[in-house]
Structures are given as C-alpha cells and as structure tokens.
C-alpha cells in the first residue's frame, strides 16, 4: 500500500477535524468516531509490520516529495528498525488511550480532537526523515498536550501544563540551533536525515561536540534524564489518565528515539566523546529515581518517578554504543516501559475514578474485594520490577549485558536499582492490596469493568509474549541496530 506512513500520520488529523463538526452533546458518537479513527492507524501499523522486511537496515515505506525547494526542505518519511516498533506502540497506545478516555465528560469534542491531533504529531515524529518536518511535528505535539493537561487536568493543571510546555520549548530552542548549525555546515545545505548521517563523520569535531550537547539538552528534557526530570511528576499527576498513558508510553520515548535516530549516527565523534557522561546520567537516574519513589505517598507520583528510574536504563544501555546488546536493550526498554507504565497509569486511573484519591495509605486489603484489579495491578508491578518472563526483565538484562564490559562499575551500581525497585513497589502493593480491607470503602469500589479490562489486556499479552519469547520484538530491530553500531563507530 503506497503512502502507508502518510495515512498513519494524517488519518488521526482528518478524524480530529471531522469530530469538530459534531455537536457537543453527541458524546457517544464522538467517542465512537475517535475510536474508529485510532483503530485505522493501528490496523495500518499491523500492515506495516506485515510488509516490513526485517532483513535489511534500509528505510522502508519511504515517501519523498519536494516541499519548500528554496530551503531544500522535503516531505520525507520512512521507517526502519528503530521507528517501526515505536510507530506500532504509538498506534496501540493511542487506541487504548481513546478507549480509556470514555469517562471524560467535560468538553468531549475538544478533548478527542486534541487527542487525535496529538497522535498525528507523535506518528510524524517517528516517521519524519527531514529535520524541518521533524521539528514541525515535534512542536505540533506540544499544543494539544498543553491543552489536554491544562484544561482536563487536576487541581494544579495550569502550573503543570505551563511547566511542561515551557520546559520542552526550552529544549526545542537548543535543538533548533543545532539543526541550523548542521544545515549551514553541509554543502549543499540539507535537512535530510539520511544525507546528514552520510555526512556525519565529516563534521568538524568541535561542531559535533557543540551540536551533540545542544541535541542532548533537547532530548534529555523529553526522556526525562536527571536532572531535567522535574516537569514529569507534575505533568503526570495533573494530567488525565489517558494523557499520562501517552506521556509515559510515547512522549518520553521521543527523547531516546531522537538520540538514536539523530545524535548518534549524525555525530559519531560527539557520541563517542560523551558516552561516559551519558552512562553516568543514566545510572544516577536509575538510583535517584528509585530512591525518590520510595518516599512517595501518591500512587501516580510513584509511577511517574519510576519512569525516571526506568528511562535511566535506556540511557545506560545506549551509552554502550559499541555493543548491539546495549542499544537493543535500550530499544527493548523503550517498548517495554511503554507497555508496562502505560498500563500502570491506566490502573492508577481506575482506582482514582472510584475513590477520588490516589493516596497509597488510604487503601488496604483491596485484593479481598477487587481480585481482578489487584491481580492485574500486581502483574504489571511485577513487570515493572523486572520479573523474568515479562518484558521488563529482558530489557534490563540486555542493558546490563551491553553496558557491563564498558561501564563495569557503573553497571554494578545500576544493578542496585533492581533491588530498590522491588522495594518501593512491594511496599506499595503491601499497603494497598494486602492487609485488612479498609472499611471506609465498603461497597464503594466495584471491580474493573469490561472496558477497563479491555484496555489493559493487549498490553498484558504483549508484555508476557515479549518476556517469554523476545525474538518477536528483536527480529524487527536486529539489522538496524547492527547498522547503527557501524555508523557510530565511523
């Protein structure tokens, strides 16, 4: 099918525009329309997986058209082993998030329209192969996100939304300067990823260092790497459930995706120069995030900080640039974290919808009255703390295997994170699910309904499948990763 990626990018936008013509009262029609609009890209992404040839690192489904000839700007999209899993994850989580948003009653029309616009932005970022296009999509995402948090969020929504918006924008400025530096240092001037990657080793070394730092700031904020992470807990706590899912599941991955897609292959010298700081930041994130998690009293904040910790593994893994295992571990972690943390945020939303509180200490003994909810929650908690047989373990283990030869001592410290993670999660499980049932909730907390179960089942199946047989994920990535390692070693 030609134009596959374009359809995936723009169908949500079209759907969003169509929804604007609905009447505000037609809530169920709007919800149905939004669901259909996200199911189509999901089906397309499955077709993409079907047609994708995993034996080559070459870009596939490429579309290339002139856009602004004077600046050498093209509409250029394509997918390879780095972006294919991310595109699929985006399509899946978007669909799930839409279904998880059926409880939204306030300004339904605008909510879903913004959400679909957001999906367009995310898909675009993962598919773009031209800096101009990439930057446009990168910024397009900010707007709906800002409104989704700022309008439909919790008590401190304005603060969180502005913080998110400005922080990301702050990073984007560095990225923009970096892009311009690369643009003017190639002859003829180009914004094409592929051409810039080709040109990569020829960039002046000092330029590479400078641009690497600029890009790193932009991407580190998005990841979020320590110490640029403080927007995340605020944004997560205030955002509505489905927005948290997207934020954790997809948006954070754009930081690591940017490093893998842009910084690493375009700036091989800069990358190799900065692997130690990157690994160190990753390890600090792992340990620091886990320690801070232990002090949390709000369930959602705990999950938010656990993201800081888990994304640290991505940085540590990718810093081991000479090993396929490290980068593969990073990409596994991106995918696994998207599944697991996405589901955890849905589950936080489930209990919040019923109890209108997220305070861990307010619950107790939930397993007695909500067996399904508790079972599912504990399953994903186990996934998050890296239990073998589930996806999180495979990625953490690969990260360690990759980073150990290069960063022996740092990896030794990072391993501590495995213990701390078990500590804070089991503490939460004990306080919320074990013990005597807190009688103040008697009769007020029904178990998960069918719609809610539906939203987590696909995530659970994927988490278990990847954990038991990781090849179903690694098969898409292998040649691309090997090629990436070659590009960085230039």
């Amino acid at each position, binding site marked *: 099918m030609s134009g596959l990626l374009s359809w995936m990018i723009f169908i949500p936008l079209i759907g969003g525009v169509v929804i604007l013509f609905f009447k505000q009262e037609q809530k169920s029609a709007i919800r149905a329309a939004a669901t259909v609009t996200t199911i189509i890209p999901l089906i397309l992404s499955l077709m993409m997986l079907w047609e994708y040839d995993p034996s080559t690192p070459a870009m596939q489904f490429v579309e290339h058209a002139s856009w602004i000839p004077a600046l050498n700007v093209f509409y250029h999209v394509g997918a390879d082993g780095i972006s294919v899993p991310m595109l699929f994850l985006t399509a899946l989580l978007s669909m799930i998030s839409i279904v998880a948003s059926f409880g939204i009653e306030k300004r339904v029309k605008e909510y879903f329209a913004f959400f679909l616009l957001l999906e367009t932005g995310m898909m675009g970022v993962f598919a773009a192969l031209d800096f101009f296009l990439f930057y446009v999509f990168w910024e397009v995402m900010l707007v709906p996100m800002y409104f989704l948090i700022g309008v439909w969020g919790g008590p401190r929504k304005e603060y969180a939304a502005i913080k998110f918006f400005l922080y990301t924008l702050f990073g984007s400025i560095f990225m923009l300067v970096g892009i311009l530096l690369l643009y003017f240092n190639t002859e003829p001037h180009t914004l094409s990823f592929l051409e810039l990657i080709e040109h990569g080793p020829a960039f002046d070394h000092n330029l590479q260092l400078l641009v690497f730092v600029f890009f790193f700031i932009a991407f580190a904020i998005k990841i979020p790497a320590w110490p640029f992470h403080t927007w995340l807990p605020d944004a997560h706590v205030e955002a509505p459930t489905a927005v948290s899912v997207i934020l954790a599941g997809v948006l954070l991955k754009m930081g690591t995706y940017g490093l893998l897609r842009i910084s690493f292959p375009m700036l091989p010298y800069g990358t190799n120069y900065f692997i130690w700081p990157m690994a160190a930041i990753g390890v600090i994130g792992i340990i620091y995030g886990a320690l801070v998690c232990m002090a949390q009293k709000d369930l959602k904040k705990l999950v938010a900080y656990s993201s800081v910790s888990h994304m640290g593994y991505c940085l540590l893994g990718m810093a081991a640039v000479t090993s396929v295992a490290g980068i593969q571990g990073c990409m596994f972690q991106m995918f696994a974290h998207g599944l697991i943390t996405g589901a955890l945020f849905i589950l936080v939303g489930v209990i919040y919808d019923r109890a209108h509180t997220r305070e861990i200490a307010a619950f107790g003994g939930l397993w007695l009255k909500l067996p399904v909810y508790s079972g599912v929650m504990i399953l994903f908690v186990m996934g998050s703390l890296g239990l073998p047989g589930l996806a999180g373990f495979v990625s953490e283990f690969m990260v360690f295997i990759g980073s150990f030869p290069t960063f022996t001592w740092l990896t030794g410290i990072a391993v501590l994170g495995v213990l701390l993670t078990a*500590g804070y999660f089991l503490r939460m499980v004990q306080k919320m699910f074990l013990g005597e049932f807190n009688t103040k909730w008697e009769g007020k907390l029904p178990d998960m309904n069918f719609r809610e179960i539906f939203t987590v089942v696909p995530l659970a199946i994927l988490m278990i499948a990847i954990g038991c047989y990781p090849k179903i994920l690694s098969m898409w990535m292998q040649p691309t990763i090997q090629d990436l390692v070659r590009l960085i070693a230039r």
Partner: protein
Amino acid sequence: MLQNAWIIPALPLAATVLIIFGTHRNRAVSSGISIAAIVSGFIYAVAILFNVLHDHGPHEFYFKWLDFGSWHLQIGLLIDPLTAVMLLVVTIVSSCVQIYSLGYMHGDPRFSRYFAYISLFSFSMLGLVLSNNFAMIFIFWELVGLTSYLLIGFWFEKKSASDAGKKAFITTRAGDLGFIVGILITLYACGTLNFGEVFTKIETGVFAGGLLTAAGIFLFCGAVGKSAQFPLHVWLPDAMEGPTPVSALIHAATMVAAGVYLVARILTIYIASESAGMVVAVIGITTSFMAASIGLVQNDIKRVLAYSTVSQLGYMIMALGLGAYTAGTFHLMTHAFFKALLFLAAGSVIHAVHTNDMQEMGGLGKKMKITALTMFIASFSIAGIFPLSGFWSKDEIVASTSGHPIFMVLTLMVAFMTAFYMFRLCFLTFTGGPRDQHKFDHAHESPKTMTVPLMVLAFLAIFAGWVGIPWLSHGFSSFVYHGEPHHAAFHFDIAGISLFVGLSGIGLAYLMYYKGTISPDKVAARFRPLYTLLYNKYYFDEIYDAIFVQPLYAICDFWFWFDQHIIDGLVNGAATLTLWWSIAKNWFDVYIIDGAVNGAGYTIRGTGSILRFAQTGRLQNYALIIFAGVILIWFLR
C-alpha cells in the same frame, strides 16, 4: 523421551493457567487438576531417571532464545543424573504436599488460588532444575522467588504474613544482585552462558584467575540469598507465616535447596578457584553453626524447623565448598524428604491444636499416633541415627571435612545441637502431660489426606538414603558425581563418632525434656546472656533494621526533599527569575527606553510649543523680524 522433558514443568504451568482462567470457582476440580499435573510429572520423572541410569549423559536440547550481535542466549534442557534426582525429589515432595493440602487447606476461602500458586511454584522449580544455562536458571530462580512471595503472604490479611513475604522477596533479591553480576562476569569472560561451554572454558584455562574467583563469589551471592545462608538468612524463619505445607515444600525441601543446587551445578568453578570454594565452605559452616545454636532455644515449632533447615543447608553448602559434590547433593536429597516430613507433621500438630507454641502443647502423642510416630522417624533421620536416610548422608558430609579439623569439629557440634533441638521439639510436643488442657482436649489425629503423605515421606526418610550405602556397587556415588565417580570408603571411625554425637544430643534432650532430670530453666538461668542472645537470634533483624532499613527510608526522604526543593527549586527559580527579569525589563522599557523615546518626543514638542509662538502666520510679524535681522547684520558688519 528426554527431549520432551519440558512436559514435566509444562503440566503444572498449564494447571495454573487453567485454574486462574477457568476452574477457580470449583474447588475440587482445581485441586484435582493441580495434583494430576504433578503426579503425571512424577511418573515422567521416574521414566527419565531410568533413562539416565542407563546413559548418564549429559543430554542437552536447546534453541536460541535471544540474540544480539554475535552473542545469544538459550532456552534449553540439561538432563544429567543430578537433574534426574532433583526432578524426582521435587515431584515427590510436591505431590505429597499437594495431597496433604487437600486436608490442611480445607475450608480456606482461597483454596483454588492456593493450588494455582503451588502449581506455578512446581513449574518454576522444575524449570530451574532443567535449565542448561545461567540466564535460564536465573529466570526460573526469580519465578520461584515470586511464588514464594505469593505463598508466604498467602494469608495476607495478617500484617506479619505480608511483611514476611516482602522481606523474603527483597532479601533474596539482594543476593540476586550478586547473581546478576556473576552472570555478567561469566558472559563477559566466556562469551556464552551455557553451563557446558563455560566449564570447557574453565578447563582450558580461558576463564581463570581473579575473574573466575570474582564470578564464583558473586554467583554464590545468589545461593546465599535463596538458601538463606548467613548473612541473608533472616527471611527464612519469618517465611513460616505461610501455610505449613508451603513451608514444607518451598522453605524446607525444594526452593531453599535451589541455592545448593546452583552451587552443585557450577561446582567446576569452585573446584577451579580454591579461594571461591573456601568462601563457600566458610559461609556454609558459619550458617550451619549459627542457625543450629538459635534452634536450641526457640519455642515456635515451625521456627525450630526453619532454623534447622538453615543449618542443614549450611551443611550442604559447606560440603560443596570443600568439593564434595556427591555428599552435598546426597544430603540435599535425603534432607528434602525428612525435612518435608518434619514440616508436614508439625503442620498436622498445628492443625490439631491451632497454635505454633510448643509451650502450649505436650502429651499429644497419645492422641496423634501417626503424626507422632512419623515425626520421631524424621527426627531420628535428621539426627543421623543408623540406619535411617540421614545417617548415610550426614556421614558423607562429615567425611568431606576430613583434612579440615576446624570444619570437622564444628560439623560435629552442629550434629550434636541438631539431635538435641529435634528431640527437644519431639518431647515437648508429644510426651509428658498437656500444658494447655483446653487445646489438648480439642486435639485429634488429622484426616487420611494428611496422614498418608506423612507415611509416604516417613518411608522415604527411612529408606531413601539406602541408595547411598557405600557397599552398593551402583549406589548414589556412582550415579551423581563430579569428574570421576568416587567410592567413599565407609569410615567406621567417622560414622562411629557422628553416631555417638547424635545419640548424646538425643540423650541430653531426653534428660532435660522427658525425664526432667536437668531443669531447662536452670540451664537457661545459668547461661542467661548467651540464652538471651540466642533467643533473640543474635539480634540480626534489629541490626539490619538499624543499619539498612531505617537509614534507607531517611535517605529516600532526603532525596525526595532534594528533588522538590533543590532541583525543582532551580527550575521554578529559573522561571521566577525570568519573570522578575521580564518585570524589570518591562520597567526599563516603560521608563527608560520608552522614556527616552517619549522624552525625545516631549523635548521636540516642548521646543516646538515655544517655537510655535514664532509661527504666528502674520506677514507683518515676519516682515518685522526680517527687518530686525537686516538691522542686526548691519551692526555686526
């Protein structure tokens, strides 16, 4: 036949899935599925044993599970005599325990879930013993940890139970950190995690020296956690919060033996690196001695058995550290049977009197004949009395210390203490008069589902060790061995001494707790400080709480504060500064820059408003000024 051995763990896994997603509402069907799965596994394990007796192997079957670059990880089966024995042990004990649980858990509201968990555990444990590489053994290692967590905290309404589950998971995971690092070192040094390939690298000298020692010690950390060795033994006694059959299966017979199994499996490392082997042996005997001494004074029937387990595991670990593969694995097998029996018999007692405290028991032998008899058999076995199972395996353990006098003395002291505390337990529970009349009156012998497994295990506690009788030409030592089969000559001197030590332990217990010739209270008073120290388990829990747990919470609170006030403070501070900056700029704009612009305007306007008076528009005025100018020029000229 052998390549289909994966069926053995797959059956219980299927049972778990079926129970959770299908039959959980029907208690009889759920427990039936679970028991059928494990009994079928047992039958298959017997068939495998005969196969392996015929051809020792090792037989290996695997496929690539995950590859990255030039490396890959495998999932595969390794079947050799050790595996065959372990499969048998696990399936027998698990079958007995599950049948026993029909009676013991009868009436529990989460009956079906219990069987789902037990099946999941059986799956994990069987997978663990079948693993052919480090990564896979680690995967199942963690899964047994999960099921142990779930089962210890099975009655999670009780805070003590959920605490114990959490403690078990986290403490064993602390050991697993070392395990992970050990695996990473091994992979880094060998480029493979397959057991056979790693051992080849050791034998060819590729994997040697400090790296090998480091790998050995780090890998051993995993065993220290799982097998509850010093200093990570603290979780096992607390794990007794779980249902008693669980304690029997997981925390006595099988899972805790996984650490011993691991050390045996990778014994090549500890033989190649003597210093790593010595670390293992020292940890083993330290644990054994420490736990036995604590066991002397505990009053909770299950805690006595728990410390006994820790102590016996220490025995096995020590023997392996000294290179005695056959002794360690042989004792692993015999111990599994008699320790499972001890726990199940204790469970039968608890079931009857609804207390764990031996101070409230007494005289129960009259009412519970089968339980008492089987408990005494198991106690004779663990005390190493001829000709029961324990005698033969303990003899080999003691023999393995020949050449290490300190180890031998300590080993014999442990043997003495073991005999003493076991018979203290038996006498306090079954003989004498009832100390709590009410509980005694309500006591009754347990139902058939519970006593039949006791009898089966009692049979094994007597006879299982006979496969290791040194005069057998095809005994245990010519089946399970490392390198060359060794025929341990029977040492009459060693056997005599250890038998004597065991009997004197029993004798002392007899005098103190049956005859009452020596008053236990007076002994306790005589050694008050020592007694207090032992009674409080050397204060390990308190020490760990003070140096690890509490400081950790404080550190976490500090870093959260740091995050909120310093890092986020910087972010918000930057925002505030920007805001002030823009306010200042605004002021500057309004009053200075705009002021300058406006000032220029005002100046011009002011000047203009004055000059304006000159611009009257009247010709006469202009003519007058021109005239005045002409006059002025005239004069100036």
